[in-house]
């Protein structure tokens, strides 16, 4: 697979950077060339890539980065931040209108997934306690109306249609009146797919916009779209002034460069991502995660979210505090161990950590090893857990006897812990800069090292 190959190459390049105490401008430039190729293979638009790389380069060859203690990581951090930033930074939602109904208009090329998205959005709004009206404004594609009606039936939600003989502008106008008299607080307009260069049909969209004044005009884009994504998005945005983008078919193996190109060209946020065949399969879009995906860097945030589901929030905050102050102890280690084991298999978790994925392929994780670690830590006194430095020869023997292990096991654990502490500090430092407060459970990989 081309993409995986590149992701690996990229990670290797970054690993090389990480290993270097000092970086030259040349090192950075050659790493950025790899980034450039990765972005292009991920279908990010050529011009966007060019701008992006020069922006990163400007920041990365600065004195602060090159002279910092961890220049490699600094470069990765910059790349990641800039990517996230390009995609609109924070997650962006659909706002409900203060004066209902909230009118949402879906537009896009043929086959992008508008009708399916209409059904998925309706499902989401129903979950939010809304009563959406689906509107069949695609009078061109054979059986498009029927498709929306079937989705409506599945959702047990009304579908407004006037057949395919009426003007879409009239249909949408009548639909709004219908929603008002019927008490629907959300209206979803499913318009026909059209080419961005089809003046006549683009004009029809402008007319619909003028007639019903939608609260949100969303452009639905196939995440597998190539270089052309910018032309499409630019034209739709120019004509209609879109409010956001829905990225579909993200459950495949597309690297999603289109996401980056579109946000960069239109400056509009990607609001949702279609991730499966079922009506539930529409998720809020996370620019930061997409950044990682495009670079093949793993998905730290999904890992953290998964951790958060399992973790006690208060404990997580305490832990974050400790990480920051570098006060991570064996007690915390133990706590973490239990929580992590609740999260699933070890390998599964490690796989989500950037840079780890392709290194643990051959690593045979012995889950029984974890029982041993637990036993060892349980045999320590409170003081020992808090200050492992105090555990010397005789204490080690005692702990080994108490836990039914060998002194070597205790030694190994203490050594691992020390490495972990070090890594924790690095992770903590990294978070302070870029990834923000979301890293509540940042300490979920304690025995990585």
């Amino acid at each position, binding site marked *: 697979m081309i993409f995986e190959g590149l992701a690996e190459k990229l990670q290797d390049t970054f690993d090389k950077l990480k290993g270097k105490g000092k970086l030259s401008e040349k090192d950075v430039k050659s790493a950025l060339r790899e980034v450039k190729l990765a972005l292009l293979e991920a279908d990010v638009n*050529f011009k966007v890539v060019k701008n992006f790389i020069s922006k990163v380069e400007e920041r990365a060859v600065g004195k602060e980065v090159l002279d910092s203690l961890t220049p490699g990581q600094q470069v990765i951090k910059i790349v990641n931040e800039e990517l996230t930033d390009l995609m609109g930074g924070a997650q962006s939602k659909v706002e409900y209108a203060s004066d209902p109904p909230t009118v949402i208009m879906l537009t896009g090329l043929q*086959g992008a997934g508008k009708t399916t998205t209409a059904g998925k959005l309706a499902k989401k709004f129903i979950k939010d306690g809304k009563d959406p009206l689906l509107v069949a404004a695609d009078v061109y594609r054979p059986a498009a109306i029927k498709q929306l009606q079937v*989705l409506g039936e599945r959702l047990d939600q009304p579908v407004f249609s006037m057949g395919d003989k009426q003007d879409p502008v009239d249909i949408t106008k009548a639909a709004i009146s*219908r929603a008002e008299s019927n008490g629907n607080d959300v209206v979803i307009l499913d318009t026909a797919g059209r080419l961005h260069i089809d003046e006549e049909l683009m004009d029809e969209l402008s007319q619909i916009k003028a007639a019903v004044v939608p609260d949100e005009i969303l452009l639905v884009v*196939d995440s*597998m779209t190539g270089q052309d994504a910018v032309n499409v998005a630019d034209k739709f945005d120019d004509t209609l002034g879109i409010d956001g983008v829905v990225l579909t078919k993200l*459950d*495949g193996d597309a690297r999603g460069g289109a996401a980056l190109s579109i946000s960069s060209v239109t400056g509009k946020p990607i609001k949702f991502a279609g991730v499966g065949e079922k009506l539930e399969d529409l998720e809020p879009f996370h620019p930061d995660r997409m950044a990682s995906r495009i670079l093949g860097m793993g998905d730290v945030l999904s890992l953290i979210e998964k951790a958060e589901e399992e973790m006690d929030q208060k404990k997580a905050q305490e832990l974050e505090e400790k990480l920051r102050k570098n006060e991570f102890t064996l007690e915390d280690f133990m706590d973490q161990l239990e929580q992590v084991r609740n999260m699933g298999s070890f390998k599964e978790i490690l796989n989500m950590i950037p840079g780890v994925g392709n290194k643990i392929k051959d690593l045979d994780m012995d889950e029984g090893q974890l029982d041993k670690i637990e036993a060892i830590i349980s045999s320590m006194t409170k003081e020992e857990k808090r200050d492992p430095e105090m555990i010397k020869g005789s204490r080690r023997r005692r702990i080994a006897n108490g836990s039914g292990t060998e002194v070597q096991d205790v030694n190994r654990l203490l050594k691992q812990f020390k490495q972990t502490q070090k890594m924790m500090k690095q992770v903590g430092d990294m978070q302070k800069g870029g990834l923000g407060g979301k890293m509540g459970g940042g300490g979920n990989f304690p025995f990585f090292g």
Partner: protein
Amino acid sequence: MLKKIFGLGSDEEEEEKEQEEVEEEIEETQEEDDDDGKSLFGRLKEGLSKTRDGFVSQLESLFRSYDKINEELYEDLEEILIQADVGVQTTMKLVDDIKEKAREEKIKDPNKLINILQDDILEMLNQTEEDDEQPTILMVVGVNGAGKTTTIGKIAQRAKQDDKDVLLAAGDTFRAAAIEQLEAWANKVGTEVISHQEGADSAAVAYDAVQSAKSKETDLLIVDTAGRLHTQSNLMDELEKVKRVIEKESGPMKVEVLLVLDATTGQNAVSQAKLFDEAVDVDGIALTKLDGTAKGGVVIAIREELGIPIRLIGVGEDLEDLQDFEPESFVDALFDF
């Protein structure tokens, strides 16, 4: 009227009506363009380059803007290729090859590079003739939204025009109203369609259709399948099963698989082609939606890496807008921006 507006409660009669409307719709779209009797080549050019008026070929202007061959020129060339979705690897390969030939043949004039480039791409595309005299079962596969059903409608129409007996099989039993969409085309084109209800086993539909095609001695049976992402292994397994059933029952009929690919797709198309090929052995590609601004350059990489030839291109909504793939015109259009 109200009942009609609120489409949910539609009874059978209304559905029939809708069906008729759908057919009229198709007819209308078709009629609109029946009168402009342009040659196939002309239509192709037109379809491929709607935005082109007033622009010279990007390649020509590139090569003209340099009076000697240098590294910058090659970089600009890379840019053009990548923007046509040719992909990084194939682009590098092409540019490296041109560099080498330019050196070997001591070429100084940038304009001469155009021919080398075009020849290189044509060589990569390496089209072979297909013979379609034997009765054929054509299984049409692809990701969601690629344009399978529409392409089937157009292929059926072409075959009918060639006086062939055509039968359609509504194998997309998953997507809402997919069967209706195919039936609408079938009625328009004047072919029969074998269908079960929504949610039925796609392989069973294929089985019935093959039996029917054999007993009627149909020239061409086209089997529609549900769009699926190539990474969904359970759905790909299902597709394999459909193909197995078809092959087992095909008897004297030849079985071919056509992958429908959306030209706006980027490098992911390689992955699509690869995984569909692994599952059902793809014989050819139909590249759709070439009437936009997308170039579809990724098919070069697909032909090169996987050896799958491009057979058909879709350059518009009308029935005539499905055409045989002509490498020369394709390469020309690739560089028209």
